[in-house]
């Protein structure tokens, strides 16, 4: 198996772009990644394009805009994990020796889709969906139990959103560049109690892309290759195996596999982008990703360990809460942020001497499973 490096990344600014069709967003990000890699577009031998709400063969529309046709191109749907799945598949196509250069793109345009203004729900006919489940409720249920069983306050959970919105102010790609206060967050309108609007990621349009090559060819393109030290993707397990809804077994198992593959541990991670679709998620994922023991996660946040300048800065991009959550693009956008961090190109939000980065996404709701899919990638310089 060959080691794989990322030699170029690109992203659109995240936001609401009703005037831009999904393929235009995707093309913008793909073009930026190809320019960053410094390659002629025609060099690309394969592509993956992740998307949930854009319709038929969107990858062909995206790459057709920028002169890339007649290659192996696979479109991917894996809910919030779609972008990470595209990275994972591109990683394997190169690691296995099948191809030498390829691109992973994630793109989402909620505003131009039939989902505009709606809460994301399970697929049509799904039993919990029919009975009133949506993605906010899914995590509100966990948050209610988490707060009541572990004596965590709404103020403490809101501090995640305060931190990530602060980081977002320093990210030119962030949907929101606005500081928030704890009071604003907990007094914003309730969506699914106890989750209020400003504990939620926004609805986001955007795209991101990454160009991958074997590490031994990377020097030809860049002096700063970023290696993919681990790539793990898992589907959800049955919820009757899921003992505690305040602890994601899927994330825990996936992270452990990723650490094993990378030969690294949570203590080695310098910077992390994790799935903060809702503020509470970030606290719970600290534990599952091994950054602290259970019961220490609020302290980790309140002590500033996960803030910029702390021991393990989390969601320096602003996270899904501030940077935004363009569903299928988020996994790729996290990789772009980590690549910028590991290259020392993250501007005001730069983590000093960042050498190892971890990206985590989880998503998709279906009756009977904990969640649809989870992915963890570990990058290193």
């Amino acid at each position, binding site marked *: 198996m060959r080691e794989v490096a990322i030699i170029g990344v690109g992203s659109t600014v995240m936001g609401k772009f009703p005037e831009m069709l999904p393929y235009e967003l995707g093309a913008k990000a793909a073009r930026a990644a190809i320019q960053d890699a410094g390659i002629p577009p025609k060099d690309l031998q394969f592509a993956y394009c992740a998307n949930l709400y854009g319709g038929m063969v969107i990858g062909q529309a995206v790459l057709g805009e920028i002169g890339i046709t007649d290659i192996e191109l696979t479109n991917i749907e894996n809910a919030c994990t779609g972008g990470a799945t595209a990275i994972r598949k591109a990683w394997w196509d190169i690691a296995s020796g099948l191809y030498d250069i390829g691109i992973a793109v994630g793109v989402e345009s909620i505003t131009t889709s039939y989902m505009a203004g709606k809460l994301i729900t399970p697929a049509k006919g799904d*039993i919990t969906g029919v*009975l*009133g489940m949506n993605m*906010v409720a899914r995590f509100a*249920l966990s948050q*209610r139990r988490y707060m009541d069983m572990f004596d965590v306050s709404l103020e403490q959970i809101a501090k995640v959103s305060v931190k990530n919105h602060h980081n977002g102010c320093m990210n030119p790609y962030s949907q929101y560049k606005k500081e928030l206060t704890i009071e604003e967050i907990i007094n914003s309108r*309730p969506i*699914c109690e106890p989750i209020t609007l400003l504990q939620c990621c926004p609805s986001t349009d955007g795209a991101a892309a990454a160009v991958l090559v074997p590490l031994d060819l990377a020097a030809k393109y860049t002096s700063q290759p970023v290696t993919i030290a681990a790539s793990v993707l898992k589907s959800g397990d049955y919820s*009757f195996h899921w003992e505690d809804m305040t602890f994601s077994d899927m994330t825990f198992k996936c992270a452990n596999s990723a650490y094993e593959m990378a030969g690294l541990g949570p203590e080695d991670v310098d910077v992390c982008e994790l799935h903060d679709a809702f503020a509470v998620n970030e606290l719970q994922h600290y534990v599952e990703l091994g950054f602290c023991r259970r019961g220490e996660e609020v302290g980790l946040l309140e002590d500033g360990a996960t803030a910029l300048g702390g021991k393990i800065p989390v969601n320096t991009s602003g996270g899904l809460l501030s940077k935004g959550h363009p569903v299928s693009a988020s996994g790729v956008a996290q990789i772009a942020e980590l690549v910028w961090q590991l290259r020392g190109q993250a501007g005001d939000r730069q983590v000093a001497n960042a050498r190892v980065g971890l990206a985590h996404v989880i998503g998709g709701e279906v*009756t009977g499973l904990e969640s649809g899919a989870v992915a963890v990638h570990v990058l290193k310089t």
Partner: protein
Amino acid sequence: MKNRVPFREGLFEETSGKGSLIGARCRQCGQIIFPRREACLNCLGQDLEPVRLSRNGKLYAYTIVHMPSEHFEPPYAIGWIELPEGIRIFSQIRDWQERHLKIGMDMKLCFEKLWDEEDKEIIGYVFRPSMNGGGI
């Protein structure tokens, strides 16, 4: 009178508001699953017996939803109810405005109209706090 129609076939037996959820027990590994399947989801054993699930459980988690869904106008309550069999059932929760919801409280199964569809009343299972209370 409107026709009463279950929201999904095969999930429960019900007559005029009284009945049970129907799951299955694997005779090989003992796992209880809901809804029923062709084979056990735990061990893939094919020797399953239908079981009527307990009609009482405890509230594992709940939320009040303030956005509309396909069939329900806000605000409405939903939650996970843990049954003595060790499985959790996702359900609409009723009487949440009259009774203060609390994790661990005793809940009981009822069957009632979930929504109307043309000339039909769509019937499903809901849970509501039982009168004997209970806490964590």
